[in-house]
């Protein structure tokens, strides 16, 4: 079995079958991560380059672990703002890396569509590790994996995504994934954080957190980007957290066994109360564990699945 594609750029163009294949493959890789010797020879001799144009610890480490557990060689290539300002373009940087015979380029970039450019022009497989406000497909896949572990069925699942929907690649990838799989998706946040015509993505929009949370099976909180306060999107962090912070009382509005998710890193007390982040309903750390297995599955399936 393999993904019949060179690159993983986003969830939007993936079929339900492809998504399911990744999730099923990830199961066996999760088993590998639970072993005493957490390594299989699957990608021995292959080179994975983590090309990160944005600071990231969680995603980069997760990809690095995934590649290493598959026995690939891993290079971390963190591009500081200074080398961009020296004038080297993304394409030139990537061509240089490809000239070193990289098989995979895992790209994190602040601009939407950056991985699409590389995918078109390079032979290496491009894995999108987050591009601007566009997509973060492996995050959505690991969220799905976690949901499947806990809830079994996607069909009919009621799920609320809370926060800055307009600027969130995690929200977009999850909306594409969950609506494809038959879940009912709500987005909750102030109108300034809702992109135009978001309803057309097949979601229901709520501006009131309490109303939106009523009866949902899953609450997916987004990280608030604190620099967006002021005239930009909301007046103050104080007002934002009064209106949109997930507190224990608010969790009670959801279904009794509701799960709380967060892609991390969390702002305790801003979008999520510490008691909620640490509660039994929180699966935030499961998400991190599953991230490695899902990324192993993605690398494996893109390599031809042999």
């Amino acid at each position, binding site marked *: 079995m393999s993904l019949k594609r060179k690159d993983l750029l986003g969830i939007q163009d993936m079929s339900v079958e492809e998504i399911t294949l990744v999730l099923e493959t990830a199961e066996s890789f999760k088993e590998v991560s639970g072993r005493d010797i957490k390594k299989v020879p699957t990608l021995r001799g292959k080179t994975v380059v983590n090309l990160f144009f944005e600071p990231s610890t969680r995603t980069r480490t997760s990809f690095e672990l995934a590649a290493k557990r598959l026995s690939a060689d891993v290079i971390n290539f963190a591009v500081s703002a200074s080398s961009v300002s020296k004038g080297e373009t993304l394409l030139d940087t990537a061509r240089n890396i490809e000239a070193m015979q990289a098989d995979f380029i895992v790209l994190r970039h602040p601009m939407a569509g*950056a991985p699409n450019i590389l995918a078109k022009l390079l032979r290496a497989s491009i894995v999108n590790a987050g591009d601007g406000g566009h997509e973060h497909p492996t995050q959505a896949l690991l969220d799905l994996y976690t949901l499947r572990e806990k809830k079994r069925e996607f069909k009919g699942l009621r799920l609320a995504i809370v926060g800055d929907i307009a600027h969130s690649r995690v929200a977009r990838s999850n909306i594409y994934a969950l609506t494809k799989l038959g879940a009912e998706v709500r987005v909750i946040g102030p109108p300034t954080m809702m992109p135009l015509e978001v309803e057309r993505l097949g979601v229901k929009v709520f501006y009131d957190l309490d109303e939106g949370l009523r009866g949902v099976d899953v609450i997916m909180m987004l990280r608030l980007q604190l620099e967006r306060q002021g005239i930009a999107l909301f007046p103050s962090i104080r007002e934002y957290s009064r209106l949109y912070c997930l507190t224990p009382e608010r969790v009670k509005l959801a279904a009794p066994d509701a799960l709380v998710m967060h892609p991390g890193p969390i702002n305790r007390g801003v979008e999520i109360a510490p008691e909620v982040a640490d509660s039994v309903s929180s699966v935030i750390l499961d998400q991190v564990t599953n991230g490695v297995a899902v990324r192993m599955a993605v690398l494996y399936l893109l390599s031809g699945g042999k």
Partner: protein
Amino acid sequence: MSVIIKNGRVIDPGRINGPADVLIENGTIAAVGPGLKAPAGATVIDATGKWVLPGFVDLHVHFREPGFEYKETIATGAAAAVAGGFTSVCCMPNTQPVNDNQSITEFILDKAKAAGLANVFPIGAITKGSEGKELAEFGDLKKAGCVAVSDDGKPVMNAMVMRRALEYARAFDLPVVDHCECTHLSEGGCMHEGQVATEMGLHGIPSASEDVMVARNLALAELTGGRLHLAHLSTAGSVRMVREAKARGIRVTAEACPHHFLLTEEAVREFNTNAKMNPPLRSRKDVEAVKAGLKDGTIDVIATDHAPHAAFEKEREFDYAPFGIVGLETAWGLALVLAEEGVLTVEQVVSALTIQPARAFGLAKGTLAVGADADVTIVDPEAQWVVDPGQFKSKGRNTPFAGWKLKGRVVSTLVGGRVVHP
């Protein structure tokens, strides 16, 4: 020196639309009519099966010289113009340095003369350095040869500066051309704000960023009685407001570009940087409104906003790629789509490319009237061709129309009675 163009169908809007010959003597039109007799020694051009049109007039091109010669020069731009049937082009002042004074205007005219292809009419800046603060010297600019003023590429954000520009320009009867964009609303945007931007996670430029500036400019035109020309209208709101303003007798003219009546925001999918321009490609509803505006005369002019960029500049992250596409060498075939779709008659298409733009800027061009400069474009209305940017005379290859099959091709262009293309 005599030239006679025989056996074509002459379409000179409002004058003639039918089989006729065109006689040119010493660079001017000497006669237009059926069965003209070729004087002895005249050069005969056979236009059987072709249309013979006044040379096209483009009110909106960027020739990049001085300052950005790697993108385009006045010579390559002029070559692109005549290859596309444009015999007169008006070049925007956003060069480096900005054309805000007599010496830059003269430089442009010298380069154009040396190229010896299209007539190049410089547009001067509204404000010094196009910084939006102090008015440029309109008197000097006009005297040096500028035919309009504009800070194109940028709007004039300060309403008082725009008011003064419209007032002051009246002394010289210069049209004031505004690129309507509220930069507060468009900040950080790189495509139309709507469903596609939402899906792609790109920052949007809302239609309102154009609409609020069109509204402001119309109010200022009414206040001052100045001659307002609105560049590249792209929204339904703009078209509605201009229509209403014209009905009330406000002095305003407006232009639309082929990409704004043929493409929607959908063209941006796959992060196609050749579909990135400002104003951006809008929604289907906006495209329909622009067409309706052309049909009822709300929009007077088809202009290209020819904006060449080097390939490496467009091969970038969508946000970082510069705005703009080339347009001179595809405009005729694209404009003719309007006739095929029944939006405009062929005569109206020709009018929007010739006499209408000439009138908007007060240029003695765009007509085959006896005594006019013999700027003539001959097209083959049946010729099918595929847009191949590799064949462009322009240095710019940045077009979203690559691979489009078009009908109607420019076969020959004359400027002042001289064949300049092919």
